[in-house]
């Protein structure tokens, strides 16, 4: 037997990929319907038949919906909710029943007439997406027709290399397939926004649609190649063609792997500004997230985790081991260790005597007072810095004096280690900018440190004089207060002018909308809870920093937090509707 002729068909690739497999023809489920005239006496029976079909269809759809929720996720399963509603729609049922009664028509015919009327409205819609939604109505009508026929809906278990070839796959038919086995889909009808396309993309199944009369030519069992990126389907490919596509498929899967790696670099705004995304970590259980979410190192390691309220301080060697671990997890990009931020709840000694701990002897103040604690921690960090890249950031700096004193102590410890020939690494020293006084003198502080870290949580608390833990004043805790924004703008500018790095590491950086604002204020280095990185990256990758800048400048002109929040909500929704919805923007909080 001579080899079958290789045939190329052009369509529209709607879901990426190359698949080499075998054809499985599937009837689209569209049925031919004939008119029958029924006797007056049989009308009641016809109505009952129709209602039974509706109930059966509803049960089937309920099952499909549940299955789709598992396989496709809730978002895509929602379409079947729409189908369920359509099936139960009073207008549809009333119209069909009225037609049965008035025209003495069989249920199938009544359904087809009513369905066609509805569909004709749809076929005239200019908007492509909405026009294709007519297929939802068609889908429901077809399901009812099958139910009326007493047949079971087509349901197949597919062989492992099945390429579904069909005239048109109705969405529920796609969802009914055993999706674990369908390798690709090729249909005569359909466009980019057809449900077949949407579901195929959601499932990552390559699909070419709009192949016109391909279905007629393909036979179940034929060899077939789907090449979505070339909008092509090849029937009976020659051995040479098959070989070529095997290479292509390999190359594509290689590229897929490098793209997954690329997710690890900085975010890049649409106008090309790169923004580094680092991880804030505290507990060892969070370490895995640093790599998993593609963080560039650790922007903030909250070292006070090492101190437990019961056990008190740990030894220098224990600390050394912990910091070496942190450096290893952070890798090349390094980790920034914040010196013990003590003075709140985690205190090795009793500080109950302090009436107002937030304004008391905490953080760097505690370290400068209890110098042995600070020195021990510095030695541990310096020693661990021989194993990896580590830097130190000083918490709650008020002015250059705090920095100078801490730096002097660090130098003494370096000298001590050198004298004893203990190996250690160089560390840079940064200041947490989280007190308004530090913001106002940021230009001065910038001259004595290697970098800034903006701790927005404390900055909001101290600027607005609002205790974050006090529910009574929660209403006054407004991250988007114009004063806070001015401080961020001011601090970032001071860092830029001094030519030092500035990392924003508060909760603001973890929130996509705020991260975009920070980018607008010129931040190019953010540190956040690792799990937030993908969301923040997605937001930043899809915005233009100049547009963000414009919004920021307008925010700075606002009189109050409420005004900023409203402005951000409106402008973000208008500018980036594909990224932001009311759910990921600051909510309106009209004062009670």
């Amino acid at each position, binding site marked *: 037997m001579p080899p079958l002729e290789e045939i190329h068909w052009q369509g529209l690739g709607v879901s990426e990929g190359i698949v080499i497999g075998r054809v499985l023809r599937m009837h689209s489920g569209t049925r031919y319907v004939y008119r029958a005239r029924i006797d007056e006496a049989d009308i009641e029976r016809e109505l009952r038949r129709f209602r039974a079909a509706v109930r059966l269809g509803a049960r089937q759809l309920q099952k499909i919906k549940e299955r789709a929720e598992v396989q496709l996720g809730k978002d895509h399963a929602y379409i079947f909710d729409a189908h369920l509603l359509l099936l139960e*729609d009073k*207008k549809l049922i009333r119209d069909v029943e009225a037609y049965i009664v008035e025209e003495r028509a069989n249920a199938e015919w009544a359904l087809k007439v009513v369905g066609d009327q509805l569909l004709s409205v749809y076929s005239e819609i200019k*908007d492509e997406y*909405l026009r294709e*939604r007519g297929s939802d*109505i068609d889908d429901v009508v077809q399901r009812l027709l099958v139910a009326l026929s007493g047949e079971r809906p087509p349901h197949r278990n597919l062989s492992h290399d099945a390429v579904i070839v069909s005239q048109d796959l109705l969405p529920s038919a796609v969802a009914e397939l055993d999706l674990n086995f369908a390798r690709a889909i090729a249909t005569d009808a359909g466009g980019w926004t057809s449900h077949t396309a949407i579901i195929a993309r959601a499932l990552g199944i390559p699909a070419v649609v709009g192949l016109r009369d391909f279905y007629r030519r393909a036979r179940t069992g034929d060899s077939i190649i789907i090449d979505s990126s070339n909008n092509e389907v090849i029937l009976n490919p020659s051995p040479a063609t098959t070989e070529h596509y095997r290479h292509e498929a390999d190359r594509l899967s290689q590229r897929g792997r490098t793209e997954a790696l690329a997710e690890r670099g900085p975010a890049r705004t649409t106008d090309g500004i790169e923004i580094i995304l680092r991880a804030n970590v505290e507990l060892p259980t969070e370490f895995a997230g640093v790599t998993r979410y593609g963080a560039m190192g650790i922007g903030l390691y909250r070292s006070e985790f090492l101190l437990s309220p019961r056990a008190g301080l740990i030894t220098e060697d224990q600390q050394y081991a912990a910091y070496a671990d942190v450096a290893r997890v952070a890798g090349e990009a390094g980790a920034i260790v914040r010196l013990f931020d003590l003075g709140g709840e985690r205190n090795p000694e009793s500080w109950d005597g302090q009436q107002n701990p937030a304004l008391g002897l905490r953080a760097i103040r505690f370290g400068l007072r209890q110098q042995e604690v600070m020195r021990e921690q510095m030695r541990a960090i310096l020693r661990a810095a021989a194993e990896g890249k580590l830097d130190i950031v000083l918490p709650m700096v008020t002015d250059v004096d705090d920095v100078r004193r801490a730096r002097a102590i660090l130098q003494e410890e370096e000298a001590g280690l050198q004298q004893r020939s203990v190996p250690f690494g160089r560390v840079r020293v940064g200041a947490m900018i989280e007190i308004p006084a530090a913001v106002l003198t940021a230009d001065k502080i910038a001259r004595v440190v290697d970098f800034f870290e903006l701790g927005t949580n404390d900055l909001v608390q101290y600027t607005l004089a609002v205790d974050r833990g006090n529910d009574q004043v929660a209403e006054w805790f407004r991250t988007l207060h114009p004063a806070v924004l001015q401080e961020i703008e001011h601090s970032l500018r001071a860092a830029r002018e001094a030519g030092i790095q500035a990392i924003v590491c508060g909760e603001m950086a973890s929130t996509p909308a705020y991260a975009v604002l920070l980018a607008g204020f010129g931040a190019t280095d953010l540190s956040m809870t690792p799990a937030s990185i993908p969301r923040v990256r997605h937001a930043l990758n899809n915005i233009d920093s100049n547009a963000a800048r414009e919004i920021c400048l307008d925010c700075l002109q606002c009189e109050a937090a409420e005004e900023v929040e409203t402005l951000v909500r409106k402008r973000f929704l208008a500018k980036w*509707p594909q990224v*932001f*919805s*009311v759910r990921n923007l600051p909510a309106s909080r009209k004062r009670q």
Partner: protein
Amino acid sequence: MVERTLTVQGRLGLHARAAAKLVRVANGFRSNLRLERIDGSAEADAKSILSVLMLAASRGTELRAMADGDDEQEAMNAMEELFFSGFGELQQEVK
């Protein structure tokens, strides 16, 4: 009776899935809820998905929403919220 003008915000218009959400929300209220194209060319019962779909409202379409009943204010607010959020799916199906 309360009346408000609402704009279809979702990129994809008032399609089946969005309509399903609207209808589910509308059916949670006792009031009679209607939507009408501003030019009066079509009107719909917000509690019927077919009826809503027949508005064929693409993105940017302005609709007059009317609510009539003892919970009309709440119903209108709920509908407005849904329209404002683009039916909760502004982020999906972007390509």
